[in-house]
Every structure is written in structure tokens, then in C-alpha cells.
């Protein structure tokens, strides 16, 4: 009696093992192989999770959310060949940064297919519509709230708003003249706190604001309008190396003391036009040209140490204010 029971139990256990082995090794059913139709992504993911399929083909009509993206990745990691196509989907990317200025404006850069139309919005609603040109477009917004989103062509990308960039004082160095006066006034009207050292006579300076030493804890940038900055050239170079910014205009770009850091030198050739200025020459290989007219570079920038230097050939910007247009 006992031996018969043992033989029966052994047979049952063996049968269970054979069944389990057969379930694991049997080929997948034809119904589980195939693609997730439009709108059926969730259903397909559930099916592919419950029963292993050799391949999962997904046709997307909109960008999958992070949960579904992770789910697809997990199914692929489990051995399923996951592939997707999105013939009508427009890829979009968005980046948000703060302009380093008192006003704290927001720069939004959108990347996508050429001529895609993208709607920008933030936590309070729609902001603007952007036509993406040459795969990328930028907008500078006065303000934004919360998360900035870019949506279009079934895609949506989001980027959080970074905190305002730290803004410190500016130092203007120049000889007494209209350019120094109007540059200081324009910067102050834009909300900057400006210290100025304006040379009036040999050994005589008119000073505005505080007389701090030039360091990155106090100043965001120094603006040197002409050769009167020469006595501070060494301090300016150290300031830039430590992360400060420098704008060298006109004759300041030609100072030998700035040769190492300046992106180029301005003049003597002038560029005529609505906004005349000195043509930049000797532009360093790592400099980026920011403004040009008639094929001549007028403003260029480059990194120097941890900071940046801009060379500008515009030496009479005061005329833009007195005679706009």
C-alpha cells in the first residue's frame, strides 16, 4: 500500500516538472509577437509583461511618458527585441537658462525639426509660439514661472526654471567723454550697480560708486572703454582668470597687456554703416564672432581662464542713444 502511494506521488511530481519545463521552453504563441497599434501602447506593454514575446514593435503617435519609457526599457532588458517608429512625431528638446543681468530674463532654446512650430508655455499658461529654424531657435522672455514646456507635433519636452543668476556690480574704466558717460547711464538704466573710474587729467580721476578691489566676489564684469584701463590690466587679467567677465572696447583691445586674453583687436579700419565701428582683426581661433557687418567682425568673445572676454569695435555707442535708427 505504502509503496503504491510513493510511486503515485513520484509520478505526479515528475509530471509537474515535465509540465513546467514544457511551459518554459515552448515557443511563444504567434498572437504575442507583433506590434502595439496606435493608442494601444499600455495594452501591449501589459501583454508583453505577462507573457514573454520575442519582439515588440511599437508605432508611436505621441511621445511616451517617462513611465512607459521605463517600462519599454525593462521589457527590452528582459530579452525582448523592442523597436519603435514614429513617422509623424516631431522630436523636440528644450533648454532653459537665466540671462546674467539684473532683470533676470529667461532664455529658452528649442531644438527640433526645421520649420516645426512649437508652443512654449510655463506654469501660468502659454507664452509664445516658436518656428524652429536651422534645428534650433531661442527666445528671451521677461519672466517665466515653474516649469517651461515646449509642445508640438505630438511631442512635449519640459525643463525646470533655474534660479536667478547671481548679479554683482560692474566697473567701467574710461577717459572722460561721451562714450563713458552714456555707457554708465545705459547700464544703470538696465538696473546694474555701476562703479566708474573716469580719467579726466593725468593723475585725476572722477570716481562713481565704491572703490573696491577688482575681484569676483564684488564684480560681475569690468568694461574697459579705452587705453585708460592700462594701469589695471594685470588686475583685469587676474579677475578674468578667476571667473570674471571683461568687455574691451576700441583702443582697450589694442593694449599689449590684454594681448593674451583679448579675442581680437579693434581697428584701425572702420566699418561704415548704420552702426559704424572698428573692424576686429587678429581674431583668435577659439573666439566666437558675436556681431559682424558687411563681412567684418565687430564683436567677438572667448574664454580666458574661468572667465570670458568680449572685444568690441563699437567705440561710439553714445550716438545710438542720441540718434537712434
Amino acid at each position: 500500500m505504502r509503496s503504491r502511494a510513493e510511486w503515485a506521488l513520484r509520478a505526479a511530481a515528475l509530471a509537474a516538472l515535465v509540465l513546467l519545463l514544457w511551459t518554459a521552453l515552448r515557443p511563444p504563441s504567434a498572437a504575442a509577437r507583433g506590434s502595439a497599434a496606435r493608442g494601444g501602447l499600455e495594452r501591449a506593454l501589459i501583454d508583453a509583461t505577462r507573457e514573454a514575446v520575442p519582439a515588440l514593435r511599437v508605432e508611436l503617435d505621441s511621445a511616451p511618458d517617462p513611465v512607459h519609457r521605463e517600462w519599454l526599457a525593462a521589457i527590452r532588458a528582459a530579452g525582448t527585441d523592442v523597436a519603435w517608429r514614429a513617422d509623424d512625431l516631431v522630436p523636440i528638446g528644450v533648454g532653459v537658462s537665466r540671462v546674467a543681468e539684473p532683470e533676470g530674463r529667461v532664455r529658452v532654446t528649442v531644438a527640433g525639426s526645421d520649420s516645426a512650430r512649437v508652443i512654449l508655455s510655463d506654469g501660468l499658461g502659454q507664452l509664445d509660439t516658436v518656428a524652429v529654424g536651422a534645428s534650433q531657435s531661442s527666445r528671451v522672455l521677461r519672466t517665466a514661472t515653474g516649469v517651461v514646456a515646449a509642445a508640438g507635433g505630438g511631442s512635449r519636452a519640459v525643463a525646470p526654471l533655474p534660479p536667478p543668476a547671481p548679479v554683482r556690480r560692474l566697473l567701467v574704466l574710461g577717459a572722460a567723454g561721451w562714450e563713458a558717460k552714456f555707457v554708465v547711464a545705459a547700464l544703470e538704466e538696465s538696473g546694474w550697480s555701476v562703479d566708474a573710474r573716469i580719467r579726466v587729467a593725468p593723475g585725476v580721476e572722477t570716481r562713481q560708486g565704491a572703490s573696491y578691489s577688482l575681484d569676483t566676489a564684488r564684480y560681475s564684469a569690468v568694461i574697459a572703454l579705452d587705453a585708460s584701463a592700462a594701469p589695471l590690466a594685470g588686475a583685469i587679467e587676474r579677475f578674468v582668470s578667476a571667473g570674471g567677465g571683461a568687455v574691451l572696447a576700441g583702443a582697450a583691445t589694442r593694449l599689449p597687456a590684454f594681448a593674451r586674453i583679448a579675442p581680437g583687436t579693434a581697428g584701425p579700419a572702420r566699418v561704415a554703416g548704420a552702426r559704424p565701428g572698428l573692424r576686429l582683426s587678429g581674431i583668435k581661433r577659439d573666439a566666437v564672432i558675436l556681431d559682424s557687418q558687411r563681412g567684418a567682425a565687430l564683436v567677438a568673445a572667448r574664454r580666458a581662464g574661468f572667465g570670458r572676454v568680449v572685444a568690441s569695435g563699437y567705440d561710439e555707442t553714445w550716438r545710438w542713444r542720441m540718434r537712434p535708427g
Partner: protein
Amino acid sequence: MSEFVFCTGRYASGDWESAPLLPANLIDSVARYTSIEVAATGVTVPLDSPRIFDHPLVYLTGHLPFRLNEAERANMRLFTERGGMVFIDDHNHDVGGIFHKTATEEIGRTWSPLRALRNDHRLYSAFFEFKEGPPATSHELNGWGDNLIHPHLSAVTKDGRISVLYSNKDYSSEWNYHPENKKFSSVDNTRFGVNIIVYALTS
């Protein structure tokens, strides 16, 4: 970099050219005392001309009625809005005189009423130090005009900066001589003119 060019404003109503030697005298002083790049000769520009915007400091004077026409008024308003400064001096030195009465009226109509400028204003230390405020002129004491020493200048200010500076002290007579004659004075009486120009260029 553009040099400073002394500009005398020409207006339609009166004798704008009553101090023809003043520009050369002040130009000489600026060149003598400062390192400011200054043009050797001044210019005369009509107040209604767009060329006025090439000269952010304009000097005006006269003896006769001072009236701006509509074009001059509109241009000068725009001029100061963009950052220009006007220096007007009563060549009569007479608060009862026709230039003073019409000029102060015109200034109020074009900009806003004049207010007395404090004698510790930055103008008085812009280059030379004038601790007592505006220096007296010889014409304030010689029996001409109102025979008063005017202790203050007046101004219209914008965002803390002087946009219109008005004087009853007759600096136009005081400075209207050939710069060669400076050597006969123990103290150069054009130094306050240097202050006005340096203030305009640095404030």
C-alpha cells in the same frame, strides 16, 4: 573715440551769437587743464537741426527775448530725454530783463520749472573745487544789469542728473575774451566753465 566738440546753439528768436569768443576760451581751458580730447574749434548748430544730437552739451546765451519755436522745442525736449545737457546763461545779468523772463518761461514750457541748485552739488567739485557754489563774476558787481550777486544757479534735473543748467551770473561776459588774455589774470576765471564741461562728460 570721438572728441568733445563745443557746441553753441542757434535759436531763431534772438542774439544767440552774443559771446563769440567764449567757445575758444573754454576750449583752451579744457585743453590746458584736462586730458579730454577736445576739438580745436567749436561748432554752431541750429536747435531744430538733427545735428544737435551729435553734441550732447549745448551752450545758449543772449540779451534779447528767448523764444523757442515748435520745431526747436520738440527737438530740445528729445535732446535732453536722450541724455543731452543744455547750459543757458543770461548775458544781461538782469532778473528783470527780457532774456531772463522769457528764458525761464521757455524752460518751464519746454521742460519743467527751474529749481535752485544746491551749492554742494557735484557740479561744484566736478574738476576744480568751488566750496561756496558758483563763483561770482565781475559783472555781478559792476553796476550793470541787476547789480546782484546771484548765490545759486538753477537747473532742471532728470534722474538726478542736470539736463538744463541756467545761470543769471553772466558767465558769457566773464568768459567772452581771447584766451591769450588769460595771462593777465592771477586766477583763471574760466575754471568753472571746465567744471560744467567735465560734469557734462562724466555724469
